[in-house]
């Protein structure tokens, strides 16, 4: 019987697709286009600084470094808001007990609620990545360090990272009673992978003699350094994100099954 519940899953998906993903998608596309218009208008010295700081070359690369942050942010926080609505709010407003008294396992309940949220985040990230591919086109060509495939692939890698982190976020969200405590945890989780890039900006000396570590950790610029390998890296990242997300959700289901309703 648990194998079916098709209609229930559809209803959960329909409730998940509300204003949050729609607003995220529209704002996300607007941000990609706005960034593409803004960066070329910045003084040459500013863009030259970013090239120097992030070890990249060309206006296209400067543009992409900024676009990736936008994709990562929108895909992640769209999902974080959705997860808080799906998981924390029912606990806060006392509707969880009634829902869990129905013949549906906690695992099925969790998956039905979390799945559409992750899917919506993925759609936001994918659409933003495709638009990034479009806006970066004028900066590609002979002598350029960036490519459309690299831009889209890198956008997808950031989307995959956002979805993976959202899956990890499920576990703490199942334990907190305040949605905004959850938001703070989400913020910490989101910003942590950006620290190595900040270190490159202000303390590049810490990476001296540690090129491999730098290439691995400095998210964003590293994808531009290896633009030609991005298609392969995208496939690997998607596979890792898929397996990692699945693992995190299985762990989340276990935690949920053991969580007491009090």
């Amino acid at each position: 019987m648990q194998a079916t519940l098709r209609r229930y899953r559809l209803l959960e998906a329909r409730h998940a697709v509300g204003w949050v993903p729609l607003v995220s998608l529209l704002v996300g596309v607007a941000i990609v286009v706005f960034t593409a218009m803004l960066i070329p208008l910045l003084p040459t010295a500013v863009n030259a600084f970013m090239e120097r700081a992030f070890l990249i070359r060309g206006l296209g690369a400067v543009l992409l470094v900024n676009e990736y942050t936008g994709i990562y942010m929108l895909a992640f926080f769209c999902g974080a808001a959705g997860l808080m609505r799906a998981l924390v709010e029912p606990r806060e407003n006392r509707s969880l007990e009634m829902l869990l008294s129905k013949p549906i396992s906690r695992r099925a309940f969790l998956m039905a609620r979390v799945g559409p949220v992750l899917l919506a985040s993925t759609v936001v990230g994918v659409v933003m990545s495709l638009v990034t591919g479009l806006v970066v086109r004028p900066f590609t060509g002979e002598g350029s360090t960036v490519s459309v495939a690299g831009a889209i692939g890198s956008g997808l890698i950031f989307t995959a990272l956002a979805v993976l982190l959202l899956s990890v976020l499920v576990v703490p969200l199942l334990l907190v009673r305040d949605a905004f405590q959850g938001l703070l945890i989400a913020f910490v989780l989101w910003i942590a992978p950006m620290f190595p890039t900040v270190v490159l900006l202000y303390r590049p000396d810490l990476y001296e003699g540690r090129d491999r570590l730098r290439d691995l950790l400095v998210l964003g610029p590293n994808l531009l350094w290896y633009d030609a390998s991005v298609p392969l890296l995208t496939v690997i990242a998607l596979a890792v994100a898929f397996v990692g997300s699945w693992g995190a959700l299985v762990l989340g289901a276990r935690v949920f099954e053991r969580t007491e309703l009090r």
Partner: protein
Amino acid sequence: MKARFLWLDVRATLGERKTLLAAGLMAYAVLIMPVLVAKPPEHVLSALKGWFSTSDPFILFLFIWTDLAMNKIITILGVVLAGSLLIRERETGQLAVLLSKPVSPASYFLARSLSACAVMAVLYIGAHLAAAPLVARSVPGFRTGVFFASMAVHLFSAFFAVCLSALVSVLIQKRALAGLVSLLVLSLLVGLAFMGFYNPAWRELSFFNPITQGISVLGHVDDLRPGHVLAPIAVLLGINTVVLALGALRVRHLEV
């Protein structure tokens, strides 16, 4: 009575787990700062000289502290402290209880917003007081006066983050969406905050960005005068008052 209500609300919020988490975030920013500013690369120093017209190494610290740490933290804290104002109370049925007392929805909104501002102030000033002695030892040319002057102005940007989140909360009245919208708007303002420094031609346009007002002391590190502190504070006070007034207007006829 109102002052006591405010005080009790502040005290209750200070005891919440999310406030402790926020304090942890602030503490991390304080501890990481000496590491980040210890050995700045030459291209960063020369870029900062171009933007802020000073080669004082202290500017590097102030820039990183304000842009990387405080701007990001006030963005998230504004939403965390005020992003569900009145929505949560309404969902959990508390609002009916609270509004049954001799307090109007508008004054309740204002009291809760001011309480959130007070909590923000405690966390924010606390972080600066903790950072000052720690950074003074590791940053050459650390100037306590400029640091706290910058803090005083930027604190009102932090209040703006709270007030805006409170306004968006009562405008949208859907918690997840309100939180997301506040976060996006504040992130956009933070992202554009330094545009006036990067490109002097955009300085006038930046005037309307409350976060830019909050960082304006960075442009006067070498010639700081009282006006450089008081003027942006006055502007931010005005903006925050308008934002709160809009919120109070919105909830004036709120029905439970």
